[in-house]
């Protein structure tokens, strides 16, 4: 683990967030911070792959995230729920640093990936994104053929052999449960697929570069129930290979697919824990109201 030089950290964390100095990794023990043990960091969580520590984010002068801390366990599905506009997407996009692309964003706090700060100035952000894939709310296949869409990532990262690419395309499409439907038209435009197929193609595209984490931002919000069910099944299969973080505002979906659930409200993490507990015995009043569908 490299310790970033202090000057660079100052620059990166313009938000002036609290700077955690304990980078414990894989301990499975609740994370002590300077302000005591954060209740959201549950000691049940074994093998945390990602640690979100006192994360803050500003869009210009508008603060969207307030001191969020929690652990994301390896090879599990973690759901982020909360009413629209509460900062779920923002939080998710912090994990692969996609918010870097938005003008006027400042970030405080930290996210550790395998114990190392992803906001480390020395870190290669493209390499990080290669290891933390993402599937967007709106399917966004490239205007290329189905084959080229899946091969895009591997090509970027240096796979040029035709045979190897063919193999990767097939295994990724199989992994995304799309192979049978498209194997005869791999070289047709991806834009000719249905919405659900496009979304699965985006999943195939993401898993083609074998990331460790896949972030899903409301992947089913634009899909019909049948396509949604397919994606949910798929996610269940993918859990054995990938760590998954999914944003959803569909309670049933969170309850069905996830192992852990974080409830966000107005940019704050209200409650975090195993999904069954969050849905059956929530500790906070707001959580209970939300999961019962009393607001949102």
């Amino acid at each position, binding site marked *: 683990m490299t310790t970033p030089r202090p000057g660079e950290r100052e620059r990166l964390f313009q938000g002036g967030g609290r700077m955690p100095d304990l980078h414990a990794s894989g301990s499975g023990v609740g994370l002590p911070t300077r302000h005591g043990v954060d209740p959201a960091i549950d000691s049940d969580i074994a093998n945390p792959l990602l640690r979100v520590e006192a994360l803050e984010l500003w869009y210009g002068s508008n603060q969207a995230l307030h001191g969020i801390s929690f652990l994301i366990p390896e090879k599990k599905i973690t759901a982020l729920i909360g009413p629209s506009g509460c900062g779920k997407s923002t939080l998710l996009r912090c994990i*692969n640093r*996609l918010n870097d*692309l938005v003008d006027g964003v400042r970030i405080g706090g930290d996210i550790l990936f395998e114990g190392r700060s992803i906001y480390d100035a020395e870190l290669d952000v*493209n*390499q*990080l*994104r*290669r290891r933390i*894939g*993402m599937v*967007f709310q*709106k*399917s*966004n*296949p*490239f*205007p*290329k053929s189905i084959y080229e869409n899946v091969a*895009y*990532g591997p090509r*970027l*990262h240096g796979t040029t052999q035709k045979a190897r690419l063919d193999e990767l395309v097939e295994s990724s499409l199989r992994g995304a449960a799309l192979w049978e439907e498209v194997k005869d038209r791999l070289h047709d*435009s991806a*834009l*000719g697929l249905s919405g659900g197929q496009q979304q699965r193609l*985006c999943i195939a*595209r*993401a898993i083609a*570069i074998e990331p460790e984490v896949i972030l899903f931002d409301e992947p089913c919000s634009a899909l019909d129930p049948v396509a949604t069910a397919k994606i949910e099944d798929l996610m269940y299969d993918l859990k054995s290979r990938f760590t998954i973080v999914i944003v959803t505002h569909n309670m049933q979906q969170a309850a069905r697919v996830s192992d852990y659930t974080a409830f966000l409200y107005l940019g704050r993490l209200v409650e975090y824990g195993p999904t069954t507990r969050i849905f059956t015995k929530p500790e906070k009043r707001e959580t209970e109201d939300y999961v019962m569908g009393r607001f949102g």
Partner: protein
Amino acid sequence: MPRSEPNPGPARPLGRRRPDPLGTSLTWLSGASLALSLLLIVGLLVLLAAQGLGFFWQGPVHQLQLADGTRVIGEITATETVRAPANSEAEARRIEEEGAPTRTQLKIGNRDLYGLDFRWIDDSDIVDSTTPADLVMIERLEWGAFFGRLRELRADGRVLATGEDAWREVLRLLPEKAKLRRQVRDLEKGEIGDINHELEELRLAEARIQRAEAQGAPPDDAARARIAARRLQLESRSEALAVERARLQTLLDRERAVFVAGDGRSKEIGAGQILRALRPNAMTTLDRLGVYAGRVAEFLFDDPRESNTEGGIFPAIFGTVLMVFLMTFVVTPLGVLAALYLREYAVQGTTVRLVRIAVNNLAGVPSIVFGMFGLSFFVYLVGGSIDRLFYPEMAPTPKFGTGGILWAALTLALLTVPVVIVATEEGLAAVPRIMREGSMALGATKLETTLRVVVPAAAPGILTGMILAIARAAGEVAPLMIVGMVKLAPSLPLDHHFPHLHLDRKFMHLGFHIYDVGFQSPNVEATRPLVFATAFFLVLIVTAMNLLAISIRNHLRRKYATSAV
């Protein structure tokens, strides 16, 4: 919150549809404007096609017997009513009774005999009009068409054949003569051209040595001797070729056909001068179609003759197309890169907005101003510097320091770059952010994302820019007149001499050709159809280039489908 029901009030009748005269007339007005525009465009094309393409059709040849006893032979090209004010009461009455007098325009050819190709004849003077089958129409290398009758064929002072035999013999000779003419041309453009080219290179090599010596280098007598020896060799070869050419020339004109014009004068024409001999009145429609196709092909693929008033327009077509291609090669990368910077990399703010306004305004600058810029910047500054630095031995003859196809293409590239920038920027703006994020989320850098996703997705927009640029550039003439376009270029900018593409050469252009043939030629009546035909082919070529670009764009669009993403 209690909501108040709207008060129903007394039932109102729906009322009758009110007339809307203003709306109706506006609809009609706009529809009529559109119809008028379309009509004008279609009319233009029909006019060009009719005037230009009719020219190649071989109609009958008339022999007119005039009241004064003379005979005139020629093709009827127009008839019109003479509207002169009546001189007397009696004349006015006669016009009233018999209708206004009419007259006929005849293409009489035989410029070498009559001086004029066309003649108006009052119809009242015509006693008799016939179309005898033995009238001939000759297309020849010089002096334009000839109309008359064939009397005999001679060679070396002897009569070879007369009457029908002579006609058959002439027809038999023509393909042979065409072959000989091709031989002469190949000789001139081939070996003789090569020798002249090499002699020029030797001259330059010698000039280089001279310069070097003047600057203090040791005298290089060996090189001088080599050059002198080679020159001697080339000159003797050149003399041999000149003899060969002279031999072919005499062979070409060994047989001479003697014709009789309408007025009885006889005219001897060397068989090698005759391009085509026809008896139009004895031709079937199929013959006419064959002649038509042949003439159109000659027009498209031959060099011009007789200071552009005859022959073909091939060099002008070639120059136009090559110049536009060069321009496209320059303007597309330039415009696309500029747009990429403006849209993808520059910080969007006042500066970028100002730059955009400036770029848009650039599109409104009169094209001749670009021509002046091209002349002063490209030709004099850049070209002059290139000459000084790389071709000092050619002085005082400029190579790049004078107008040429490269400078013309660059000038037009500047003229059209705003169009490409604007269209590309629109194309880039239409690529959704989520597509870029999708690529970045896979670990692509900004550059990779731009090159592999954004630019391909914006390709139709870029192609649109290219299409507009081509359309604009192909129609520009004014700025080119001062940066390298000429009425007659000695050689094409593309040939077999290294480096094949001679960017420094002057070139011909259809637009300028139209101007030159139509308005600078002494024989306007004869060349008018050529102007129309040239204009027609200019429109056709611009359309073809545009269609090519459009079909590429449609192909891209199809490839990337259009589904809502």
